[in-house]
């Protein structure tokens, strides 16, 4: 399989075309995080609902390339129902994976496993992680009992 085919797996394009859990809820129950990448125009909001230390609902909405938009959809499916500890482990594992570093191949990742190909395209790292960064932020806002609505821009590092 070529690098490109490895990046744009069928399942990614499916999630891009038919995103799951897309559209935001207008309710104060959710922790929501709005992330933007001014450099490439990606613009994404995610919402989570936490009950009993478990993520029971996830929504997302935004605009961007197929990698960033599909990743939000995949992320929402993958972490739905997980408890916060599990979710944080998956986030870390996912980030290591798309960076091309060592990661735990045994951990349950759902469809997110197909983003392995991103490691060959470092310029797309931010596309693949924006949704997961937003999730990470939402979880820590919840844990710190901090503001429920967060606006941020992410940058190249």
């Amino acid at each position, binding site marked *: 399989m070529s690098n*490109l085919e490895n990046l*744009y797996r069928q399942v990614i394009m499916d999630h891009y075309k038919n995103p799951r859990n897309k559209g935001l809820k207008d309710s104060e129950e959710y922790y929501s995080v709005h992330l933007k990448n001014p450099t490439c125009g990606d613009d994404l909001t995610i919402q989570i609902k936490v009950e009993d230390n478990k993520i029971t609902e996830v929504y997302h909405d935004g605009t961007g*390339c*197929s990698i960033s938009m599909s990743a939000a959809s995949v992320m929402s499916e993958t972490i739905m129902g997980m408890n916060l500890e599990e979710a944080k482990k998956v986030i870390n594992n996912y980030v290591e994976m798309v960076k091309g570093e060592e990661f735990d191949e045994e951990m349950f990742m759902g469809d997110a496993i197909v983003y392995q190909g991103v490691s060959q395209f470092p310029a797309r790292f931010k596309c693949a992680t924006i949704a997961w960064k937003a999730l990470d932020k939402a979880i820590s806002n919840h844990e710190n009992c901090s503001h429920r609505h967060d606006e941020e821009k992410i940058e190249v590092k």
Partner: protein
Amino acid sequence: MKVNDIMDINKIRKDFYVLNNNDLAYLDNAASTLKPKQVIDAVTYYYEKLGVNIHRGVYRLSYEATDLYEKARQKVAELLNCQFEEAVFTRGASNALNLIALSYGMNHIEEGDEIITSELEHHSSMLPWQNVARAKKAKLVYVPLNEENKITVENFKKVLSNKTKVVALNYISNAMGYMTPVEEIIKLAHEKNAIVILDAAQAVPHIPVNVKALDCDFLAFSGHKMCGPTGIGVLYGKYNLLKEMEPIEFGGDMIDYVGLNEVTYKDPPYKFETGTPIIASAIGLGRAIDYIKAIGFKDIMKHERMLRDELIDKMSQIKGITIHNPNTDTGIISFNINGVHPHDAASVFDEENVAIRAGHHCAQPLMHCLNEIATIRASVYFYNTREDINRLVKAINKAKAFFENFM
């Protein structure tokens, strides 16, 4: 016509290590051009042989460094056909354009005045004046773009008025490659006693620019877009304007007398060059000017136009893409592959070693006009070949086919 008819492109390409060491079609020249070894050598010469500060040293190394720095200024002056004193070194075009707005703009614009700019501008040409307009309660007026998104004399006349004090426009658009009809615009603006600032970041590298013939009041460009080092650019200003303008930054090297409560400045250009100058980059820019002049603008223009014609011709035959500027005046082509996000397309180009740019090209208002989030931009320079064009066309076809698979 063969590429080599116009100039010895293979010989020229040997000067560019990046081209020799990578199997690369480099078509992102509007962002930055590559640097030939002559320019790199000039920078290295300063660092290896001198490496010292300038202007204030009474020893030989410092004197030689000063001489090289000021000779680079002389080369800029000859390139633009201006006086030595009218060429101010800056960090780049953005820095130069901001300096004009902060100094000339903030001191001359008053409530109710009008500043003309356009949606075709690079953010660096437009935002400094948005800031002045906000601070001074002046009005920012946009030249209406025509159906092709061009600035025309006719449309310029519609917005020019007795209230117009400043006209800040691009000479060549970095997003669309159009040439603004600056000669007529400058004449018309001067009839209204408005001053004209040209953002020439995409012009100076590609066409001969004569500021005295143009009679523009200010002009700015960057070194890194014309084979020069990063971190250097030029602000040209008419001497009498520079002379009466307030400096924006204060400190070393720009002062005459310093008292505890007052200060007098040196004359231009020094009063605008605060602190230790960007010595190595200025010297490198001087060498880049020599390099480009040796090739010659006539040949550069001919060559770029040939590549543009070929590219437009081949791209027009591809179905399912939108070319936003089929009548581009230069080697800048802006397009989209229908149904494919530019960043997705860009990864295919990257796999094919074709370097293009996907994004808003620092021209977000124009993106609204085009009704796109982002576009793909290919831009040529004198070292590009027909082979580069063919590779771009191949990559476009590949991206199309690749993503059609998923449809």
